[in-house]
């Protein structure tokens, strides 16, 4: 979202909303396999070299409040590690 131009960002805001609902807490964890599978599909360009594993990483900064220092660096951790379902991948890609 940071890199998109203003008109494109306006149309693509739904992705940000979706992501907000994806990693809030553990109650959303059931959504992650399908999310990762879609990411694999988007990365699937060469049938001879399909994506086999997707890692969802969470980047975040904890802001305590207006009068407290805001960390400059993002904390990062692996939110979800997924082994791609190759059969579904081929089916979704129409191959």
């Amino acid at each position: 979202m940071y890199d998109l131009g203003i008109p494109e960002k306006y149309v693509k805001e739904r992705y940000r909303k979706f992501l907000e609902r994806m990693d809030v807490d553990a109650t959303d964890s059931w959504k992650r396999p399908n999310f990762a599978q879609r990411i694999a599909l988007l990365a699937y360009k060469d049938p001879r070299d399909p994506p086999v594993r997707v890692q969802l990483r969470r980047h975040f900064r904890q802001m305590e409040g207006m009068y407290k220092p805001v960390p400059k660096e993002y904390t990062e951790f692996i939110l979800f590690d997924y082994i791609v379902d190759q059969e579904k991948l081929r089916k979704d890609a129409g191959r």
Partner: protein
Amino acid sequence: MKHFKAIDRALFGWGSPVTFGVVRIVTASLALINFLMIAIDFDAWFTERGFIPLWHATKWAAMGDNVPRINLLGTTTDSRVTMAVYALCCVACLFTAIGLWTRLSSIVMFVLIVSLHHRAPDILHSGDTLMRQMAFFVMIAPSGAACSIDRLLALWKGKASQILPMVSIWPQRLMQFQVTIVYFTTVWHKWGGTHWRDGTATWFVPQLHEFDRFPVPAFFDQQPFVAITTYSTLLIELGIAFLAYAKPLRKWVLLAGVALHAGIEYRFNIPLFSFVMCSSYLAFYDGEEFSAWAKRIGMKLKFARITVEMPQGNSLSSKGAATLGALDFLGVVNFGQGDGDCWVATGTRGAIKNPYLAVLKRCPGVWVYFLAPGAWRRLMDRSLEPGPSPIPAKSAAEVVNS
């Protein structure tokens, strides 16, 4: 007893349907724009290979309070069916906006908006929720009674009176109550949080840079400005919730609301949210007020006035006068007897203009005919009947309102 009667009149009285027409146009247009924007990513949100397959939506629905939900797409995994329903929803929004087969169109629009929202619940924001609710009110209200193709067709066929019908304004009150609920509950929830109370809440949102849109000066994110925006947000929202019903205060609290949402729209990237919120304010104005505004605006547009002379030996038929009068709601077109073989339009400075185009450009109610200019030409020609005009040199709108 007197007070009960006043309350009864305020809630269940009768009035002009123009507000319903205006709210219908704005709500359905915003819904259409919204769905056209989302359509770009249809594959991502509405197909089995996308981010939200059907089982995802089904599980989401079951995780809530498990109440029955309207979802015509609740059993299909065929993306062609989903796409057809999506396209039908866009058509229903368009037809509702222009007021064609309004009752049916608005029912289809509401049912399909709800279905599509339940099909992809994880991409919705609160503006979508309000849009869905406004679509419900448009559906139950007499939304096609004014500012609609339906009314024009009824006038043309002689099935409607030239004077707008009086309708129950109960659906309009429901819209107003909805706005009150939206703003009161938001203040209620905000007041339960620490940062809205300590005057720093509006500092947090600009820290989420994915929302960034246009820049603002640095002092916007420093005290005392943050406290001012935090507390004024609460005050404005509370004001809209309760003071918009009081006519002397209505304009000011709603203008404050528009300013608040204009600020949000300028600074933050939340598609259509501010437009949807501000469009709901229209429900606080009576239909008679909208009509009076149109008249006042028409009076001010002196440069736009034209006189259109009919071909010699012709006058406007009663259905023609009624239809053209409904279209020319600004009242800037005067029709009069002519002595030529065809229509002649003359501007205020005496310039001769193309009569069809001149009327088309001046009457917002006719703009839909830009889609079919030939149909507009036929409508004007068929508005004539042989014989002298009963009311020469008067606008068709005056004919209607006389």
